[in-house]
């Protein structure tokens, strides 16, 4: 009796999760996959095959955008890590009590504003008649207005800005758990700052680094707003192509194929990252 009731409780508790997974993740993906496998041969005539995937590989614009999105997302991840690590180290190891809480909150504050508004904020800063351009003219570095928007660098700035919190949080958590006496012992045994960072701090923080990198990479790869608004017409992003296929071209078949390719790409890169850092998914994300 007791075991039956506890089993019922277990199923009741897990049912929202299962419902969510099945109806919102698994079913749409099965449908999407089915759609991606159907080629349009005539009006309301479809055949099953890999034609949509072939279109992707035969059209250089598509796979180049794909590769560009992947590379830029990886660079964003690396840049976010390089920027986020010192910030996280400072918060976790060099501050105490209230200062620590305040600094942590300050990292969070930008997230009270919608992503759209934040991105427009960057546009106000970087556009031709924007604050940065005007300031550089004022102090005499620039002779005439310069457009800082609508290039890859602007996309990077936007992506790093959007995702840095997701790097800092797991890093602060893992660095917090690093005993200060380990760092002191490193110095005591003759270690330099660099060798302690390499042999003690980074190995300890590895789960946090990897989980931060996975989240930031996924967020950048799947981001739509920031690359479209800051990148303009010349900087294509793969999510933009998917949007075009679904909404503008009304080519759901190709759009679905793109969606699946993006899923494959993100899974492959995460898998590779885990293998290279010798971490397991449960070790990094399960904390």
């Amino acid at each position, binding site marked *: 009796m007791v075991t039956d009731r506890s089993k019922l409780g277990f199923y009741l508790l897990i049912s929202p999760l299962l419902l969510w997974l099945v109806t919102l993740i698994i079913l749409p993906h099965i449908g999407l996959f089915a759609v991606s496998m159907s080629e349009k041969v005539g009006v309301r005539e479809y055949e099953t095959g890999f034609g949509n995937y072939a279109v992707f590989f035969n059209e250089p614009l598509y796979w180049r955008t794909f590769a560009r999105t992947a590379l830029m997302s990886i660079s964003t991840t690396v840049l976010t890590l390089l920027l986020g690590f010192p910030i996280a180290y400072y918060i976790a190891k060099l501050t105490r009590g209230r200062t620590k809480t305040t600094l942590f909150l300050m990292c969070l504050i930008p997230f009270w504003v919608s992503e759209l508004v934040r991105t427009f904020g960057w546009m106000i800063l970087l556009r031709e008649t924007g604050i940065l351009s005007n300031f550089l003219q004022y102090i005499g570095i620039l002779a005439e207005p310069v457009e800082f928007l609508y290039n890859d660098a602007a996309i990077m700035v936007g992506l790093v800005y959007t995702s840095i919190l997701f790097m800092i949080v797991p890093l602060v958590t893992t660095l917090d758990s690093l*005993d200060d*006496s*380990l760092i*002191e*012992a*490193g*110095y*005591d*045994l*003759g*270690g*330099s700052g660099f*060798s302690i960072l390499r*042999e*003690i701090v980074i*190995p*300890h923080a590895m789960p946090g680094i990897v989980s931060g990198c996975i989240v930031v990479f996924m967020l950048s790869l799947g981001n739509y707003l920031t690359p479209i608004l800051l990148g303009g017409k010349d900087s294509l992003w793969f999510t933009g192509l998917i949007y075009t296929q679904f909404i503008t071209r009304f080519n759901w078949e190709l759009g679905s194929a793109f969606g699946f390719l993006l899923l494959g790409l993100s899974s492959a890169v995460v898998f590779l990252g885990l293998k290279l850092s010798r971490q397991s998914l449960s070790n990094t994300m399960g904390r």
Partner: protein
Amino acid sequence: MPFTADLVCRDLTKEFKGFRAVDHVSFDVPQGSFFSILGPSGCGKTTLLRMIAGFQFPTSGDLLIKGKSMIDVGPNKRPVSMVFQHLALFPMMDIGKNIGFGLRQRGVPAAEIKQRVGRVLERVGLPGIENRQVSQLSGGQKQRVAIARCMVLEPDVLLLDEPLGALDLKLREHMKIELKALQAEFNTTFVYITHDQSEALVMSDNIAVMNKGKFDQIGTAKELYYEPANAFVAGFVGDANRFEGKVTAINDRLVTIVTDGGITRQAQAAAELPIVGQRALAFVRPEAIQLSKTAYDSATHPNASAQIVDSVLFNGANSVVLLRDPQSGETLHAGLPQTGDFLGLGKGETIHTNWHATQARCFVAEGH
């Protein structure tokens, strides 16, 4: 034998905001000796040790190791190594990597590191455990690995920050003997800080008793125990009964005190001779108190008195009897010799106590 001090502190002072953690501390530690700094928590001993290691900078004073000033030398450049309170073994490395860490920093070739790590592990009695993980070791083994990790660098001075605190009692007793043996084996100067007097008394060649940032006394275990320099040392090192009262008579160095409860006691003045009328403290060790079932002659035994047994705390050879004076209510604890004479002693019985005045130490009470 020429006097060579491995570690010399001269007027070392450390001030935090409005608070002096270490107050003009001076001492020498000769080569190859085991030096302990004993004090209650918050007395500044950890700050002192961290200054020697280089993690904190003294406000004033000088610190010399092998005759060289260490004031402007970083912790990674000093010829001292430290065994941390919780050992601070690196969990991300195996034992071999842990011990080899310091040698790698010095750029020693890999083959030589392997050889030296193997040799130091043999010396601490744990040969062949290079490939084990830190989590696979027992508490005592971790302790020895932590010492090996320092000793492989052949430091001039090894600092130990209460490393036995986290161990259980049995292992702690065992490690005390082992630490002393390791110190003899390596013949390195050990500076050991602890709040546990038995650790300090058992292992050390010399002990400094630290209180409120100052060294109250430096001496051998015997000196501290039998000739404490002041009331704090007398109360802190070893167990002692404490009496406070007014000085009524002084005969040579023999001081007569009348306690607040009206009992007359005699004790030997330890340092400064008190003046008649001044308040003074007297300390007597529990094992110095003689017990008898028959009354002592009070004319020849000025410290004799009759006491009521409050309770008997049986602890084998360390058994103690708690006594209460029937007139003043003052309590006294005395060692209970397990010779069989007092086997049936029970609560409420009367017993006679006495001690020689030379076994009791008298100090002028502070602030009077």
